[in-house]
């Protein structure tokens, strides 16, 4: 209940104050109309007495002040016109000082003073000096602030500035500056003192009230910045040192923060640049509670914008060693403010980094310096817990990536990984993702093994299990996404030079191999494929041994790959390993390396036999094997026989009959390679096909027995198609008669009572027949071949 009452009372007091002003203003107007100076002075003084109240908050007091202010304008008009009151301005200046109460006296004095300056009967500087001195009499914070605000207001257009009519031989810019500075200093002192007003009031309320008044103080700095005569030299020698002296001496955090910010905002960038040392020198002297990081950030922001505005100014930045100064200032601030939370320090470094990235993009050493300073600050402390601090570190580390769009730059920064070391595992991963995404987004290429090493060091959080990672916590989805990113990253490791590329692959392999069973299935394939890419580039190169280093020959690379895939088999991830073995085998084939290819096939077969037990996987695997083997041309007869024999054997041993059948007819291709010098063993093709037919038949019968009805004829139609293929390819063992027989067999099967129409096999068969029909009618050699087949 207390607070509402308080507000209500305040409203009441304000209303009374306004009424008092209006009442006296009414009589003042009458006296003005009558040109009665004595009465004018009497009522204006009474009116101004309303401003003597102590009951209003700054906000309300301002309202009252504005009322009085408006009335004082009228009064000034009257004072200006000597014909109306008949008193010289000099006498008038004395006359108003007869008032017994100080506040009305000083308001009147300022008002007359304004006219006095305009009349030029006395040097402006003397009047200004007198006014600013006399105002010392009001020591009450709020009343004093507003009085001086009034003084600032009426004097603004009367300062003896360059180009001003009030500048004379004796009135110089120095006087103008002195005046504004003095008023500023006094106002700030009053403002600070407001903090100690009224013990009964809450601190928050006082702070709020003070905030409301801050612009009154700050306006002085704005006025200073508007004085044309304040050139760089004067700013450097007089203005800034005096402002800073006041800021430091007032020992008030609110004021210090606000005024530092003010300085940065109101004065030109160029001045800041030339006075950096002075400005920054004040920072460590401020109160420990001042939010210095925001202040400095603002400054660096402004400076970097300034640097961006024109290239002409850049040499100045270098000349004044802006970076070094900022850097050391930040160091000193952090040192001085022992209580500053770590997040504050890091935020400062982020600002500094942003600054150097914008102003000196060519100076990587600066970036590294900043990171180094950050490392220094973080070292000896436990890993960061504060989430804000962690965010700032991520921002710190992300900034160079965003700027250069090139991870390679970051990789040359020695302190970069050292900063990352101070992150906890989770944040480390976040940062690693940022790095990877930056690489992917900018498609930057990592082209040396050293860089690869550094990069993997940076993203080690993703590449291997770190100490203390709680595996349980990992989200499956996130994990997959992370690992997919790593996989994509591996493709970005590239160098045109095979030797270097090999080193890169080795480096990557070394790191990847530590990834553990969950990661390898994601990371090994891209590595293998990348290596195979290299191999293809090297095709035909001889494996000469030169020097101690492993030369980049396919043979050597295949050895490395073999090890990598082997790791996968232990994961275990046999299907994947099998695919990769086959990929490698094919590559070895292309390189004409029979033993290598054979070895890979052997590995694949071993896997098939020992690890791939699931029937579905077996089907897939066998088809892969057949497909790959079919394309191999490097093998001699013996090797080839061994392998095809094995493959056919596996095919026939599949669990399900249809699978068997399909695998077997697929094997037929192993004996008929449609190349110029490919193997063309029509006999064994036919053997395969026949065997397939037998199996299909067996399958049909099995269905008959188990279900009582014939199964679909799909398998037969499929085999028919194989027949047609080889028939067309000119396999002499595949005859039109055999085809004719197969067609009839299928027709019979489909028409038998026990066979239900089938939605898949029937149209398949029909379209096969249509194809034969088409070939027959097409004309040419093929038509003649088909001629003997009757449909």
């Amino acid at each position, binding site marked *: 209940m207390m607070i509402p009452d308080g507000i209500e009372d305040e409203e009441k007091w304000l209303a009374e104050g306004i009424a008092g002003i209006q009442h006296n203003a009414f009589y003042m107007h009458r006296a003005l109309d009558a040109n009665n100076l004595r009465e004018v*002075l*009497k009522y204006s*003084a*009474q009116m101004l*007495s309303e401003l*003597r109240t102590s009951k209003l908050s700054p906000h309300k007091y301002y309202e009252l002040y504005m009322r009085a202010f408006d009335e004082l304008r009228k009064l000034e008009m009257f004072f200006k016109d000597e014909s109306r009151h008949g008193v010289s301005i000099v006498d008038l200046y*004395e006359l108003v*000082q*007869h*008032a*017994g*109460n*100080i*506040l*009305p*006296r000083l308001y009147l004095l300022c008002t007359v003073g304004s006219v006095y300056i305009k009349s030029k009967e006395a040097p402006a500087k003397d009047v200004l000096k007198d006014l600013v*001195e*006399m105002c*010392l*009499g*009001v*020591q*009450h*914070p709020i*009343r*004093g602030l507003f009085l001086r605000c009034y003084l600032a207001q009426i004097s603004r257009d009367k300062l003896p500035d360059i180009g001003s009519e009030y500048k004379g031989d004796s009135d110089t810019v120095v006087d103008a500056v002195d005046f504004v500075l003095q008023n500023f200093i006094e106002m700030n*002192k009053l403002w600070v*003192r407001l903090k100690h007003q009224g013990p009964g009031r809450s601190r928050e309320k006082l702070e709020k009230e003070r905030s409301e008044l801050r612009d009154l103080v700050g306006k002085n700095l704005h006025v200073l910045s508007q004085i044309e005569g304040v050139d760089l030299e004067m700013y450097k020698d007089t203005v800034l040192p005096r402002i800073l002296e006041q800021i430091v001496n007032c020992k008030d955090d609110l004021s210090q923060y606000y005024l530092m910010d003010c300085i940065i905002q109101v004065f030109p960038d160029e001045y800041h640049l030339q006075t950096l040392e002075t400005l920054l020198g004040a920072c460590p002297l401020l109160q420990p509670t001042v939010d210095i990081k925001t202040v400095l950030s603002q400054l660096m922001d402004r400076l970097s914008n300034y640097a961006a505005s024109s290239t002409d100014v850049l040499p100045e930045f270098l000349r004044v060693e802006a970076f070094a100064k900022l850097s050391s200032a930040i160091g000193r601030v952090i040192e001085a403010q022992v209580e500053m939370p770590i997040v504050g320090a890091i935020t400062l470094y982020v600002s500094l980094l942003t600054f150097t990235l914008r102003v000196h993009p060519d100076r990587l050493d600066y970036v590294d310096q900043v990171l180094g300073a950050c490392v220094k600050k973080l070292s000896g402390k436990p890993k960061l817990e504060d989430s804000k601090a962690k965010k700032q570190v991520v921002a710190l580390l992300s900034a160079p990536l965003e700027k250069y769009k090139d991870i390679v730059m970051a990789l040359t920064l020695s302190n970069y990984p050292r900063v990352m070391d101070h992150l906890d595992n989770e944040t480390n991963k976040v940062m690693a993702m940022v790095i990877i995404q930056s690489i992917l987004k900018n498609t930057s290429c990592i082209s040396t093994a050293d860089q690869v090493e550094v990069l993997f060091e940076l993203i080690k959080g993703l590449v291997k299990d770190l100490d203390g990672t709680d595996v349980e916590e990992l989200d499956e989805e996130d994990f997959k996404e992370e690992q997919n990113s790593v996989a994509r990253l591996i493709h970005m490791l590239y160098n045109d030079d095979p030797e270097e590329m090999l080193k890169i692959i080795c480096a990557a392999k070394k790191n990847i191999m530590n990834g553990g069973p969950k990661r390898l299935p994601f990371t090994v394939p891209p590595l293998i494929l990348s290596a195979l890419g290299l191999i293809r580039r090297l095709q035909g190169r001889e494996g000469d041994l030169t020097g101690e280093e492993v030369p980049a020959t396919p043979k050597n690379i295949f050895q490395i790959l073999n090890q990598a895939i082997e790791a996968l088999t232990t994961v275990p991830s046999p299907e994947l390993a099998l695919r990769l073995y086959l990929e490698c085998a094919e590559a070895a084939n292309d390189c004409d390396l029979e033993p290598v290819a054979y070895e890979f096939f052997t590995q694949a077969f071993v896997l098939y036999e020992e690890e791939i037990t699931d029937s579905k996987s077996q089907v897939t695997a066998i088809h892969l094997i057949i497909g790959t083997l079919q394309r191999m041309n490097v093998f001699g007869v013996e090797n080839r026989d061994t392998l095809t024999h094995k493959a056919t054997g596996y095919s026939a041993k599949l669990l399900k009959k249809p699978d068997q059948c399909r695998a077997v007819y697929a094997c037929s291709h192993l004996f008929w390679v449609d190349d110029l010098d490919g193997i063309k063993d029509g006999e064994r093709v036919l053997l395969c096909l026949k065997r397939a037919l037998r199996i299909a038949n067996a399958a049909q019968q099995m269905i008959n027995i188990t279900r009582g009805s014939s199964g679909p004829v799909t398998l037969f139609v499929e085999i028919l198609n194989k027949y047609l293929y080889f028939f067309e390819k000119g396999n002499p063992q595949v005859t039109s008669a055999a085809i004719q027989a197969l067609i009839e067999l299928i027709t019979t099967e489909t028409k038998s009572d026990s066979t239900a129409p089938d939605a898949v096999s029937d149209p398949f068969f029909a379209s096969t027949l249509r194809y034969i029909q088409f070939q027959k009618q097409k004309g040419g050699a093929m038509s003649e071949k088909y001629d003997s087949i009757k449909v």
Partner: protein
Amino acid sequence: MDFLVGAFKPPCNVSISFVDTKTRKQVPLKKDNGQTIMVPLFQSQENIIGEVLIEPTQGKKFEHNGVKIELLGQIVVLVIGGLSHYTWPDSILASSVLFSSVAELYFDRGNFYDFTSLVRELDVPGELFERKTYQFEFSTVEMPHESYNGINVRLRYILKVTIGRNYISNIVECQDFVVRNFTPPPSINNSIKMEVGIEDCLHIEFEYGKSKYHLKDVIIGKIYFLLVRIKIKNMELEIRRRESTGSGPNTYVETETLAKFELMDGAPVRGESIPVRLFLSPYELTPTYRNINNKFSVKYYLNLVFVDEEDRRYFKQQEITVYRLLES
């Protein structure tokens, strides 16, 4: 008195005039009855020259024992007792014409002391038939004291014409005039500077530029705060007049506050220096009078007053000398 009490019509009209009435400065003088009249202004060692006009009423002749004119300087001391009090109006513009209503019955029981008495015989005993003028002249008259109109004491100058009569009371006519004496600026005029304080509460150093001020002077100074532990609400400078009458155990003192001038609003902190600038012209001051004819003194003091938030007052009083500046 005789003249006032007279139940009969006076046999003649008497008037006193000065030769330089037209050119001489006239100043206001408050009469016993409270009226203010304009009277001529003199200073010491001036010649006072004029004429007395006696005009018998209705042309009747009358006898007299001789006519004389006297120049008298008088000090009138009043018996003290529950006389004047005035309250200071809480006005903004401290006005000089505010204190006015001093009780009228000044002279009821007053004691007169003539410190100057000069006589000129204008006529020998005889008869007067018709209007007659007499020239008179007092040359380079010593009038060391200024006219003064205080609370318990009054110093005045009069020209008094007495027409002596037998058996019946004399005819007396008086003419007031005012004397003001100017002094050149003092050759020595030191500043008043002092450090004072209440232990652990308030320590200040104040300085007034001079110790002697003329009537239209300005007091310039500053108050420097060395220690502030009390919550000061404001600070004022008062000008006080101390009029003491009599001597020894019979000394009566009246103190008036002529000015209350606010110097500072709010509480300063250590190190603040507050300017003082007080114009004396709005206030009705007189020069300082020290022991005039062993009868009275008028002294002026500057009183620096601090008022704290509980309205307690702390003050320090300093005497200043006021003089009437000889205008060059």
